[in-house]
Structure formats: C-alpha cells, structure tokens
C-alpha cells in the first residue's frame, strides 16, 4: 500500500535486543537498595520500553499526527485521573491542627 513505511528487520531486532537489555536492567536494579529510587528507576525504564515498542513495533514513529494525539490523550487522561484522585487521598490528612493541641514533643520512651 502506498505511503506505508516498511521497517527493516535489522531495526526490529535491534529494538528487541534493547528491550531485553532494559528488562534485565530493571530486574537487576531491583536488587540494589535505593529507597524511592527503585520505584523511580523501574518506572523510568518501563516508560522507555513502552516508547520503544510504540515507536517501532507499533509504527508510531512513521505515523502522522493523529495516532500520536490519540495515544497522548489516553495517557494524559490517565494522568488526570491519578493526579486528581491522589490530590485528595494524599492531602486528606493535612487538615489544620487545632491550636489547642500541645507542642509537638515525641512520646515519652522509657528504657
């Protein structure tokens, strides 16, 4: 069909190798204790892998604007849902502390 880009096999295999390496990396990193860094690294790698699959396997790289808009809209709506829901769940306990409460001292610990 006219206007269809045919991706060379070499590119596909290259992307495959990159994906496998990233998968290995993410598994290995999980064993390195980094605190919150573990989650951030794992998600960053997942996003990179998603980008590779979408751009090459799903031909997003060769597609016109519309498909990109569709998929970006999907991700944006997901972000809206998570952010606004989180904006409630994570600020719910910020309620102002009544002024009659005593000074913040830690609990008496007896040893």
């Amino acid at each position, binding site marked *: 069909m006219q206007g269809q880009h045919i991706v060379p096999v070499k590119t596909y295999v290259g992307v495959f190798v990159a994906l496998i390496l990233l998968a290995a990396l993410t598994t290995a990193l999980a064993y390195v204790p980094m605190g919150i860094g573990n989650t951030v690294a794992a998600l960053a790698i997942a996003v990179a892998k998603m980008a590779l699959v979408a751009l090459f396997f799903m031909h997003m790289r060769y597609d016109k604007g*519309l498909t990109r808009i569709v998929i970006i809209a999907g991700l944006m*709506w997901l972000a809206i849902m998570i952010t*606004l*829901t989180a904006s*409630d769940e994570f*600020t*719910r306990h*910020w*309620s102002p502390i009544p002024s009659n409460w005593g000074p913040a001292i830690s609990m008496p610990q007896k040893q």
Partner: protein
Amino acid sequence: MSVDVAELSTRSCVHYLNASYGIKSWLLTTDHKRIGLLYLVSITFMFLVGAGAAALMRLQLLEPYGAIVQPETYNKLFSIHGIIMVFFFLIPSIPAVLGNFLVPLMIGAKDVAFPKLNLLSWYIFVLGSLFTLYCVIFGGVDTGWTFYTPFSSMYSNTHVLAAALGIFVTGFSSILTGLNFIVTIHRMRAPGMTWFRLPLFIWSIYATSIIFVLGTPVLAITLFLLTLERVLHVGIFDPAVGGDPLLFQHLFWFYSHPAVYIMVLPAMGVVSELVAAYSRKRIYGYSFVAFSSLAIAFISFLVWGHHMFVSGQSIYAGLVFSLMSFLVAIPSAIKVFNWTATLYKGSISYDAPMLYALGFIGLFTMGGLTGLFLASLATDVHLNGTYFVVAHFHYIMVGGAVMGFMGGIHFWWPKITGRLYPDKWARLAALIIFAGFNLTFFPQFMLGYLGMPRRYAVYPAQFQVLNVMSTAGATILGIGYMIPLIYLLWSMRYGPVAGPNPWRAKGLEWQTPSPPPEENFEETPIVTEEAYSYASVPPEKSRV
C-alpha cells in the same frame, strides 16, 4: 449542492425503509439509519419503564408519610429510575439515535466507518438492558444509581450484581459507538467538508465521543471492582481492611460527571442546528460554539470532586475541584450567548422543534446557573444531597437533554420517516412539556434550600405543599410526553408526505430524499460552502 429539490422528491421511491422487509432485515442490518431506529425503539421502551418509576415516586411523595409504598420499594423505585434514565435513556438518546442516523448523512458519507461494530453496539445495549430489566422484574436494586460503597458492596441485599452487570455491559456499547463516530468524522467526510464547514451537531457529537471513549472504561472497571468486592469481599473498598470507600466515589464520578456532558453536549449540538434552521441564519460565533464543545469535554474530566465536597474529601482537593467547576460554566455560557445572538435579525418561525430549542436555551441557562450553587464550596455544604441537587440536574437533563432530544426528533422526523406530523399538536405538546417541567422541578429548588434531603420515602409535613406542586407538575409533564408518542406514531402512516426539505434548511441531510436511500446519497456530495449559509450573499463575498 446543485441537485434540484423537486427532481429529488420524484425519484425517491426506494429508500432505506422499504429496500428490504422482514424482521431479519432489521435485526441483521448494518445500515446506520436502521440502527438509529433500533435504538429509538429500545430507548423509548426503557424511557417508559423509567418514567413509570418516576410516576410512582411522585405519587408516593404526595403525602408526607408516603402515600403508596414501603420505604424499601421507594428506594428501589428511585434506583431503577436513575439507572434506566441515565444509562439506558439519556446517554444513548441523542448520540445513538440521532447521531447514528445523522452523522454519516451530515458529513456526506455512505455509512459509519464500522457498520458491523455499530450493529454489535446495539446488541450489547440490548443485552445490558435485559440484565437491567431482569433486575427490575426479579426484585430490583436499592443502592441508587451511584452504588456507593460499602452499602452496595456489603449491606444491600438486592440485585446489585445484575444492575452493575447491566451498566458494565452497556458501557461497551457506548465505547464502540464513540469510537465509530470519531473514526467516521475523521476519515469519512465528503470532499470539501473541512472541519470548519461541519455542522455544529457533528462537533458536539465528536466532543461527546471523546468522553465516551475515555470515560466509560473507568466506569466499567469500577463496577467490575465493585462486583469483585461484593462477591469475594476482598476489601478494595472495605474500610475494615484499609480499603477506602471514597476511592470508589472518585472512580465513579470520574466517569459519571463527564456523563452529564454526554447527555447535554449532543443536545447542545441539536439546538445549534435548530436555532440556525428556524432563524435561517449562520450560528453566531460558529468557531466559539464549536471549540466550547471541546473545552467542555476536556474540563468535564477535571470537576468530578464537586460531588464529594462533604464526603470527607481533603479540603485542598475540594478547592481545586471547585475552581474547575466554575471554569466549566464558561464555555456553556458562551454557547448560550451565541445562540441568543443568532436570533438577532433572524427570520424566526415558531415551529415545534424551535419551541423545544428555545425552551432548552432558557432551561439550560437556569440549570447551569444553579450549578454554580453546587460548584461554590460554602453553599454546596448546605445544598449537597438535597432536592436542590435533584432540581439542578433535572434542569440539565430533562430541561436540557430531553428538550434537545424532543426538538431533534421533531426536526428530523420528516427525514427519518418521510412524513410530517401535525404541527399544532406538536407545538401544544412542547408548551405543555415546558410548563409541566417547570412546575415539577422548580419547587424542588425550594425544597432543597429548605433542607429536604433527596432519596427520602417520607418527609416532614412542612414540605408537603411544594411536593404536591411537584407531583402536579409531573402529571402535566407525563401527559405532555404522551402526546408526541401518539401523533408521531400516527404520522408514520397518515402524515402528509414531507419532501426532501420541508423546513428549507441547509445541511447535506436535507439534500437527499426523505427517507434517504440506503447509500444516503445518489452520488457523493461535494461541499463548497460553510454550514448554515442561508444568506443569499455568501459571507465571503459580502466582506469583499
């Protein structure tokens, strides 16, 4: 656009209605026009069921102690009324009936992009309706249409699963319909039909489809989680194991607030068509009206928390949602002003569809402005969960969406059936509906401010006068709805033949015979002018 109208009317002997006969030709049809009619029949049936529940509710509230049924039954009545009217009437009303019938016609296409998928959507809708009707017949559900946990997941002992399943299934029908429309509008427009030549109905259907596609799956998954919770008690929304019932409300309203715009956006599109046709003018501020539809579709996803201002939601989230809720009022206001300005120096006729359209503008204005009371945090605390809310959303959904639907059905009825209905009866019905509607729901604003909570089977005696007024209004409204049902059915057989363009309206759908042939147009139309170019001198030339 050079087809001779008179010539068209003589050629129209084979059309989509008589091209083939028999039940099978309807149940297996992939013609978007026939599928639109299948939807019309199904949603009319569901409407009658929902209206029956509403009638019983209003009768119950004639007396403070409850005139006819036990509280348990009343609770089932309002749940069934809500579920059916929202998911099985209002949401599919304009998109699935008029949208299916008109989108390909208006853009000059032979059909939607995926006709088989379109038929599948209808079957999915019917399947969902059957689950819901099963639920109604075999004992009902008493959770309200909102299914709040933990009541719905642990305490209610009615048919919650059947109801949730019905809505879950129907959701896929909405998704597929929305998907079909978006692809159709993007890929199937006739040559010359650029985005800014599209009728505003198409813009509003496009905006609605975005909500269908991106909102509905969240409702589906939420009800799925609810089902899981109810069957297995796994604790996702159960506070006893750390689950958060407010999370259910978040996920539910993420879809269900935009759903309000699913109902009213297409009606706005219809009204744009009607106002243009019956004042014979291009819609004032076309691009503002078009883009405000998209703005509404987008902002509608950012406001759902205003249903939860008193739910124990964080006050910081409340502030964000309140601000967004005020913002969503602005594109709606822009539309109202532009419609009103379209009337200016027009040639206004008082045909029945126009009466509905003008009624829509006024009632939607009231519904929208009373929405500000609920967007505003401090007043919402008092009004949330009262009859004020009930009145507000009925002004939007009945005064808005249903008025738009009725107007649209009357406007395109000659195109759909090829017949005219008796105009005097139609105008009378429109006036009765307008009067009955206001008498039903205006007193409910006052009830809400006085502090009568919604979903009450019995109520303090001080509220009786207003409740009796509301019931009286509902009676008038009910009669108003019966009249069109009778004369529209009558007109299918006995109405005078309409001709291709009885209103002398612009738009591709009026340039093909009524009823249209199976392939919509004898040959693919080529579009050379903007929508609503009624003026003899095209605007481009007048500017030179």
